């Protein structure tokens, strides 16, 4: 990937727009996928794709071709997603239900006619709770968690991309994990059969 990028980056830096177009077309999907992970929302991810390439265009001259274009692009994507998360109102601030008392929600998987728990319903309940918990993470928590847990990035790398100190990055991941666990707690005791 990067071997292909190097000549196009050099051309784009000297003002060749078709070279820049090749870079955009080559990496759009990857940028979208990462942005979707980070924002959890299709239209936000599309906005991030645009913002990212615009920022890359703006700062291309300062990019030093010694480093990997893809790594840099990844970082800009993280930055733009993070900015967007920070601007996005965190609408639902009511706490996620952490006890079994909430109306209409299953704290236990339902049993089907044969007395077996409904695995599909359980799976979607886990999914729903994870989604809800993700919505409640702060931008830093969400970004750090997605990058560490789903993307397997090192904390050091995450901290660099977000402009956070290592301690702050560690703490963000930790708080995110705590929130996820709290959200999953009501159904955790049935997790054994689910795995």
């Amino acid at each position: 990937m990067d071997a292909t990028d190097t000549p196009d980056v050099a051309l784009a830096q000297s003002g060749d727009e078709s070279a820049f177009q090749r870079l955009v077309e080559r990496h759009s999907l990857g940028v979208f996928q990462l942005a979707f992970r980070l924002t959890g929302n299709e239209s936000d991810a599309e906005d991030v794709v645009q913002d990212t390439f615009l920022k890359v265009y703006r700062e291309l001259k300062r990019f030093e071709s010694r480093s990997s274009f893809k790594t840099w692009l990844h970082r800009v994507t993280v930055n733009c997603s993070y900015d967007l998360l920070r601007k996005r109102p965190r609408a639902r601030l009511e706490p996620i239900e952490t006890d079994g008392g909430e109306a209409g929600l299953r704290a236990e998987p339902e049993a089907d006619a044969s007395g077996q728990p409904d695995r599909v319903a359980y799976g979607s309940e886990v999914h729903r709770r994870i989604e809800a918990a993700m919505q409640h993470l702060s931008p830093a928590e969400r970004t750090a968690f997605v990058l560490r847990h789903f993307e397997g990035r090192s904390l050091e790398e995450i901290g660099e991309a977000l402009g956070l100190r290592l301690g702050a990055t560690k703490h963000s991941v930790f708080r995110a994990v705590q929130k996820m666990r709290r959200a999953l707690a009501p159904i955790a005791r049935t997790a054994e059969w689910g795995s």
Partner: protein
Amino acid sequence: MRHPTDEQFVLYHYGELDQAEGAAFRSHLGECEGCRERLATLERELAAVRPVSIPERPTDYGARVWARLQPRLAEERARASKAASWWSFGAVTLRPFAYAAGLAVLVVAAFVAGRFWAPAPSPGQVAGGTPVSSTPSTTAGSEPDLAGAPGGAADPTDAAMAAARVRERILALEVGEHLERSQAALLEVMNAPDEDDGAIDLSADQERVRELVAENRLYRLAAIDAGESAMAAVLDELERALVEIANGPSRVSGTEFERVRGDIDEQGLIFKVGILGETLRQRQAKGSSI
């Protein structure tokens, strides 16, 4: 026995404990049944947190992204050639900015200059250079006279001198207030709290600072016109700092921010702005020059 903290469990899971901590953690696990169970529970729970599926994109997605992006690149080129950001490049490129405002600003500045910056004429002499209206005004703030307005043949009367002094005081008052607002804004930026992630969010301050830049530009041009070089110099420095803040990213990392803070500090800018403000307050009281 000291059990590891929840945070250490999480960091261990992700392989992010440093060597010594990791070794201590493992040796504790070897002798603590409870912590082995805690770890097993954590890993089971985190294993359940799987990524959501990502929506498909069309096969020509890259081309679609480009089609949407391309017009914005043209705008970007136009914008970039107009004003290179001091923030980004560390170069002082204030001028294009001042010119961008164009003739309108100059006209307004001339108006402001004519209205406020007329030196107090000495007896037997008309106000030199800058046009001054001879109409004395009781309500100085809503004075209707315009610089260069016809019929401005000022007589060296007491009334004209009094009017000039009033104008000077109004200017001192206005610039003084502007400086106070700027000082407050700079102090707020200097003391902007780090967020829990170590970065600084300036978006709220920037809104305010943008207004101050526009205001400052008028006063600076007026000061230059009036030959008030000390005031113009401070306003010039102030404007650079304000422009840097206004045009910078709304969110900066701690490191970037330290640099800006350092720049403001190094120039002793807040101090100078404060001094000038104080001088103007005195001048407003006495009607003397800086």
